[in-house]
Structures are given as C-alpha cells and as structure tokens.
C-alpha cells in the first residue's frame, strides 16, 4: 500500500479501537451483549478466513466447531471445571477433529470439501439435538457460568465484553503473526497456484490440512466464549445456518483480507440489529442488502476498498496469467512499447 492509503487505514484502525474500548460506556446492556457477540463471531470468522481466504478451501462446518467448543465449555464449567481448561480443551479438540476430518476430505477436489463439511455440520447438529443424555437435547444446558480472571468476576456485561475483546485481540495478534510467517506465504502460494507451490517444495496437502484444522480450532475457541456469553447452550444456533452466515461474513468482508472477518461479522451481527426498527422486515432487509452488496462488490467490502486504493490500468500491472494466455507475442509487443 502506498503511504497515503496506509495512513488512512491506520487512522481508521485507531478510531475503531477507540470506539471498541469506549463503547460499553455508551451502550445499554443489550447493545454491549451484541458487541460481545460480534467479537465472538469475529473469532470464528477469522478461523474460516484462514481456511477459505488464505488456503482457498470452502468449509461449511465452522458452526459445528463453534458448537463443539460451546458444548464442551458448557458441560464442564457447569460441573465446576475452571474456564481456562475448557477453553483450551475446546480449541485443541476442534483442531484435532478438523485434522481428522480434513485428512481424507482434502484429497479430493476442493469443492467436494464443501459437501463433506456440510454433511458433517448437519450430522453434528443431529447429535447435539438427539443425544439428550450428553447435551440435554433440545432443552440444552442452562446457567453456564462466566469465569473469574485473577479474582475479578467477569459476570457483568461490561466486564465480559472486555473479556471477549481481549480474546479477540489475542487471536488477531496470533493470526497476524501466522500470516506474516513463512506459513502465511505458503498459504498464499497454495491458494494462488498450488501446482507452482508444489514445485517449490510447499507440501500443499499438509498446509491445507493445517489451515483447515487451525480454522476449526479457532471455531472451538469462539464457541468456548459463546457459551458463557449467552449462558445457555442448545443445538439451534449451530445448524447449517450459522456455517452459511460465517461464510457470508468472510466473503462479504472480502475473503483473504486480514480485516475481512471484522467487517463481515459487523454486517452479519450488527446490521440485523440496526434494522430491527423495521420489525418483521428486518431479516428480509438484511438479506436484500447482502444480495445487493454481492452484486455490487463481489470481491467483498475490502476488495472494493483495495480497488479504490490501487489505480486501475497501470501498464506494468498486467498479471502473469494475462501475459501467458495472451501469448509471448503480446509480451514482446509490450516490451517494445516500454
């Protein structure tokens, strides 16, 4: 990015951070609850962005991982386990399940992963719903407690909001580190050109699996925060609808951009709430806006922003795909014109 837009992005980030920190003092408890939900969903969306935006795999199972994390936390904390252990357990279990699920599933062409994950999500939902002895079935698990941090209770809406925000910050930092590391470069390579990546020694299978499992693990962590946020866990939120919603968040935000999950979750969580004044029509309005958004900027909100920042039609900015399809002659001609 050139200095001008970079400075603008920096200013926006600082303002956003300021808003997030100050928000609880301006909002009523329900508003704070929605913001906490935004933070929790962003974590799940960050996971999906790793799988989809960086490694290029379509996963429709993210809701199942959020659910698994939520149920583990709900079951254990209601039995007196400390929150930290459930949260680690949720993340690690989901990572492991993601690995096991992905291992056979990623050996086939990638749009088939979408189907397998869709089936997996629905199966997990059925288990949540039917196995009453474990999950409480449709009656769910109530009175999920909120944790204490070093003696401070996170019970109040404001305290728990900061708790969620802190987790979001940690997850963001970790993800940022991941993307900047050689792993991040390998992910870009395997998304853009898997054959070339292979020839450079990038073990595409392992990296894809890793991206998928990491995305699942983050889903589990998101669920571990969801349970004490809502304090009631039942199967309904973890059906296919949430997976589709998370997918929507990533694509609307701009799949592959670092801040896509934040924006996308804003759209998916906050927009319906802002539309509530339309009463019965709010979901319709939201759906319509999403459709229009996709028609107008298919590469997502950040994709649109990126296009506005980068001037179009720079002569040297032709992609290699363009030149190789156009053939060597076109390239030679452009060389002559230089």
């Amino acid at each position, binding site marked *: 990015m050139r200095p001008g837009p970079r400075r603008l992005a920096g200013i926006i980030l600082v303002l956003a951070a300021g808003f997030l920190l100050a928000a609880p003092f301006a909002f009523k408890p329900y508003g704070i609850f929605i913001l906490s939900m935004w933070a929790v969903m962003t974590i799940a969306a960050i996971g999906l962005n790793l799988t989809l935006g960086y490694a290029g795999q379509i996963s429709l199972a993210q809701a199942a991982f959020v659910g698994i994390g939520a149920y583990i936390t709900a079951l254990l904390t209601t039995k007196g386990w400390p929150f930290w252990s459930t949260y680690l357990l949720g993340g690690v279990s989901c990572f492991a399940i993601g690995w096991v699920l992905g291992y056979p599933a990623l050996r086939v062409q990638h749009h088939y992963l979408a189907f397998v994950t869709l089936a997996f999500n629905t199966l997990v939902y059925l288990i949540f719903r039917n196995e009453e002895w474990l999950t409480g079935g449709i009656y769910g698990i109530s009175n999920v407690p909120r944790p204490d941090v070093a003696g401070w209770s996170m019970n109040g809406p404001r305290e728990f909001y900061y708790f969620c925000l802190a987790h979001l910050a940690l997850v963001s930092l970790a993800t940022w580190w991941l993307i900047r590391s050689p792993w991040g470069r390998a992910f870009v390579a395997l998304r853009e050109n898997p054959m*070339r990546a292979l020839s450079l020694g*990038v073990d595409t299978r392992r990296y894809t699996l890793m991206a998928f499992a990491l995305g699942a693990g983050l889903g589990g962590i998101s669920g571990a925060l969801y349970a004490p946020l809502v304090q009631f866990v039942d199967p309904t939120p973890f059906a296919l609808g949430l997976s589709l919603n998370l997918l929507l968040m990533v694509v609307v935000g701009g799949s592959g951009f670092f801040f896509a999950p934040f924006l996308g979750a804003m759209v998916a969580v906050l927009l319906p709430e802002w539309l509530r004044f339309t009463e019965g029509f709010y979901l319709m309005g939201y759906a319509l806006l999403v459709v229009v958004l996709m028609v107008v900027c298919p590469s997502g909100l950040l994709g649109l922003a990126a296009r506005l920042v980068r001037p179009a039609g720079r002569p040297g900015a032709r992609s290699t795909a363009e030149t190789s399809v156009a053939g060597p002659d076109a390239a030679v001609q452009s060389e002559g014109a230089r």
Partner: protein
Amino acid sequence: MSTVLAVRDLKKSFGGIVAVDGVSFDVTEGEILGIIGPNGSGKSTLFNCILGQLRPSTGDVRIDGRSVTGLRPCDLNRLGVSRTFQLLQIFPQLTARENLILAGQEHKGSMFSRLVGPSDAGLSEPADRMLEFFRLDHLADEQAGSLSYGQQKLLDAAMAFISGPRLALLDEPAGGVNLTMLTSLRDRLKAINVERGATFVVIEHNMEFVMALCDRILVLAEGRIIAGGRPADVRRDPKVIEAYLGH
C-alpha cells in the same frame, strides 16, 4: 564427476498415445544439458515424468543414485530438484524478494521452526544476493506482477536456483523473451553454472539460445532420443535436420 540424474527407459502413454517411448540419459554434475525437438516430441511430458507431475508408465528416475520415480513434486523439490514452468508461474501479488523467499523457505528448518522463527526464514539476504546476481535488485520491493515479462522470466529462473538445488530443470526459459533480455538471461544462466557449479537441464525451442548455452544436447523426436552430443555436432546431424524439417 558424479551422475546427478539418471533416467532409464522412461515411457509414458496416455491411452493409445505414446508420448515418451523409452528414453534413457544421464546428467553429470556441473553440466548444462539441453533437450530440443520438434513440437510434440515429448519434451514437456518427459520433464513432467521426471518431476513427479505425471506418473511414468514404466521406467526409472534416479537422483544421486536414489530412485525418485513417482515422488510428489514437493518431496522431489526437497531432495534438491527444482524447476520452472513453460507458462510463467511467479506469484504476482508478492514482491520479487518475497517470491524468492517463498522459493527457498521450505528448505529451511522444520515446519514448526518456520512458524515460530523469523518471518523471512532468514532468507532476506540470500534473496537479495540472488536478485543482485540476476540484476533484479532494483526491483526487490516491486510486486512481481508489475515486472516486465523478461524480468519475470529472470525472477522465475532465480527462484529455481535460490535453494541451491542439485539439479534445476528449466522448461523453455527463453520463451517470449525479447532479444536484449535473452542475452542477459543466457549470460546469467551460464554464470550460475560457472560460478556456482549449478547443474541444469534446459528444454528449448530457441536454437541460438540452446546452442550457445549448453555443454551437451539431446534431440527428442516422437518420444525417442534420436541424437546427442556437442551442440556443433548435433546441429549438423542429418537425422536432426530431418526431424525438424519433416520427411
């Protein structure tokens, strides 16, 4: 001088079509071998079989005496075999330096150490030196997609050599490059062989390029080697002339 690559009786058929029909040859350390032949002679298929992109129908490929037939391209790369593709394949949104870091990073340490270690896997310096060698250092921070076609081809070649491979296979490196860049490319490839002892095999259509660059040349026609030897000899070989001009 040891044999880096040994190909024995390699055959590849697609259904009824035999693309490679029993090819055997060796590549010794430090030599530049050229493979030429008319269109459809099986050159790219041969490469793809050696490099694990395709599974040969029969035959054996050995690197430093070790059989590598049918290994996945990434495993082969980690054994020290690198390649470039006929259709240029660099990563346009990464910078030139980042493309090189990517090309070398999988050879440094374990997957885990690459996660916790420095973000460039310690390769910024070697990448810059390689860019300097290929006279691309002034473009190090430019997005690779904004380089000219010839510059991208040079970058592609640099990517093949950064990990210090035992063997590099270059598929039509001169394709589509203008005359000025061609001299530069040929000069740099020759230099990397002389100064760093890099061993490589080149498939090419551009006769001048191949004759000037390579120590030895093999001629492929209809999936079989019909001639081989020093460039001057091959050029005069009547079988070769016939293969190119037709019957």
